[in-house]
């Protein structure tokens, strides 16, 4: 982690404040449908950021969206059937997702690389099929899933009445939850544990030889990322009010992969950049053209173009733009000098 000077620390803090203000003002500038998309975008930011934590260990799971679904189903069932208050149910749902990931890590982390990819795919499909299975329809609702999930209750504070049916209020709620989660994910990555993840990714045999239990750290990454994916699922479930197995299918997983790959996974902001840019492109370009059917093709073509021509993702553009700006500044300084 590069040390920052006092002046850059100040500008960093200023940037944070500006970003916060922008995020708070943003929903008031948008139409109703755009506000709803904004809520989903914030949830997806958490989803893809939690995915990145797992990719730090070098493993690419195809079960992440299903794990998100486990959180969604768990939270919805706990709130609906047991009557647990919704905010608590969300945490329970996320914990269930983490527990499922913990159990899955025993078979899955006997594999690596491609085998892990396929193994996680199979495990995710098994979970999805169980949701659909006619024998347990009484619990999971079969292919139609769960409906009438209780929403987040209103907050009544003195004269203040916050109604979470309003997407703007739900957006603020998500923003707070996601911001806290991102800080935790960031701290985990920058901690000793995060360094160990990196070590396992690049030199797993060497890490093992100096006494790192690679299985334990891989499964820790899996469990932590599952917790936050489950939390994203819970936020989704209580917002939309219904969940079904197809919502957490392979197509959605493909989108997460595309966000992560187009954005790049080498930096913390890469996947976030990916999901934000692609969602904006998706909403602006495709909606303007009125061709919603073309969405998968658009994403597919983008994925191919980005893996062929920008293999390090959008994030690799950031240092290049920065270097280009610095160079321009220098040139201008040189050009100014003779005039003085």
């Amino acid at each position: 982690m590069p040390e920052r000077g006092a002046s850059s620390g100040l500008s960093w803090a200023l940037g944070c404040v500006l970003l916060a203000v922008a995020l708070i003002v943003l929903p008031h500038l948008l139409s109703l449908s755009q506000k709803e998309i904004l809520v989903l975008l914030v949830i997806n930011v958490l989803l893809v950021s939690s995915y990145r934590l797992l990719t730090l260990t070098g493993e690419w799971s195809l079960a992440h969206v299903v794990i998100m679904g486990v959180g969604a189903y768990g939270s919805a069932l706990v709130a609906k059937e047991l009557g647990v208050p919704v905010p608590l149910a969300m945490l329970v749902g996320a914990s269930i997702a983490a527990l499922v990931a913990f159990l899955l890590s025993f078979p899955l982390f006997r594999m690596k690389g491609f085998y892990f990819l396929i193994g996680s795919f199979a495990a995710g499909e098994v979970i999805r099929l169980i949701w659909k299975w006619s024998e347990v329809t009484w619990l999971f609702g079969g292919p139609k899933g769960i409906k009438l999930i209780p929403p987040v209750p209103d907050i009544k504070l003195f004269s203040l009445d916050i109604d979470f049916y309003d997407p703007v209020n739900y957006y603020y709620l998500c923003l707070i939850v996601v911001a806290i989660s991102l800080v935790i994910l960031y701290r985990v990555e920058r901690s000793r544990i995060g360094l160990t993840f990196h070590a396992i990714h690049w030199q797993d045999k060497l890490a093992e030889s100096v006494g790192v239990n690679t299985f334990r750290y891989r499964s820790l990454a899996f469990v932590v990322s599952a917790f936050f994916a489950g939390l994203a699922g819970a936020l989704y479930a209580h917002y939309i009010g219904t969940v079904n197995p197809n919502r957490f299918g392979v197509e959605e997983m493909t989108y997460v992969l595309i966000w992560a790959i187009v954005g790049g996974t080498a930096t913390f902001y890469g996947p976030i950049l990916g999901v934000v840019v692609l969602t904006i492109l998706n909403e602006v370009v495709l909606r303007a053209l009125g061709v919603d059917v073309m969405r998968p093709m658009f994403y597919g073509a983008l994925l191919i173009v980005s893996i062929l021509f920008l293999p390090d993702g959008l994030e690799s553009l950031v240092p290049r733009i920065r270097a280009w700006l610095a160079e321009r500044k220098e040139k201008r300084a040189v050009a100014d000098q003779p005039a003085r």
Partner: protein
Amino acid sequence: MTLELFLQTVANATYAASYMALVAVGLVLIFGVMGVINFAHGELYMAGSYAVVALYAGLGLPFFLAVFIGLIFVGLLGLLMEYGLFRPLRDNPLGGLIASIGFLLILQTIAVLGFGVQMEHVPPSTQDKIVFSDGVVLTYQRLYVIVASVTLLSALWLFLRRSKFGWALRACAQDREAAVLQGISINNTARLAMFIGAALAGVAGALTAPLVAPTPYMGHPVIITAFIIIIVGGIGSLEGAVLAAIIYGFVSTFVTTIYDGTLANIVGLLLMLIVLVVKPTGLFGAKERA
């Protein structure tokens, strides 16, 4: 379970194993030579089905002509993938896999735009059937699939064992660099493997089109099935893929008949997970690749 039902299920399982073997062997061949898992393989199967939807059900061409054109068409799609995706990404196996996911989405969208999302009905090309006894029937439509599978896979086996191209293919699958040093053209063998692998998926899709009601999303269960088969058989082993297709075809058909389809899928995936945990190299896999 009565004897009739048992025999009928055996007939159904033979049919299922036949088309699964065609798809899985193509996938294994591509992996063996190029080192890439082709996620779009199910969509190649779908493209074969839609060739029959367009040419046979739509234009009224003879069924087998439509199947043949479908085979060539999907083979050419395979060449396109090799040239556009897998060749530039040759040193990046994960990149090839991800690019094939992108290609899958494009093929699906083309099918949706061209034909719509609804199920297509393809009339059977013949009403003939073999009646073994009361309640044990094998339609010609299914027999075609079984015959085609046995013929094509035997031909492929002979081709790989006896012809010069076959030797080159197997040499590339064993050790790419050593093969290059022997003067084998990687590009030619990759092209050949991709054409054959894709065409096998295409012909399976084309032949089963009258039996399964094609939709743009039909490739999804097919690719899952193919993954189960290649993992159980051992990635990279053609014989293993055929054997695993037979095992999985019978297990899945019997579980579907006795219990239900969802349970059959769960059993198949658990079978694959168990193999992955206990013996990741599969029934026939040699040492670990990749």
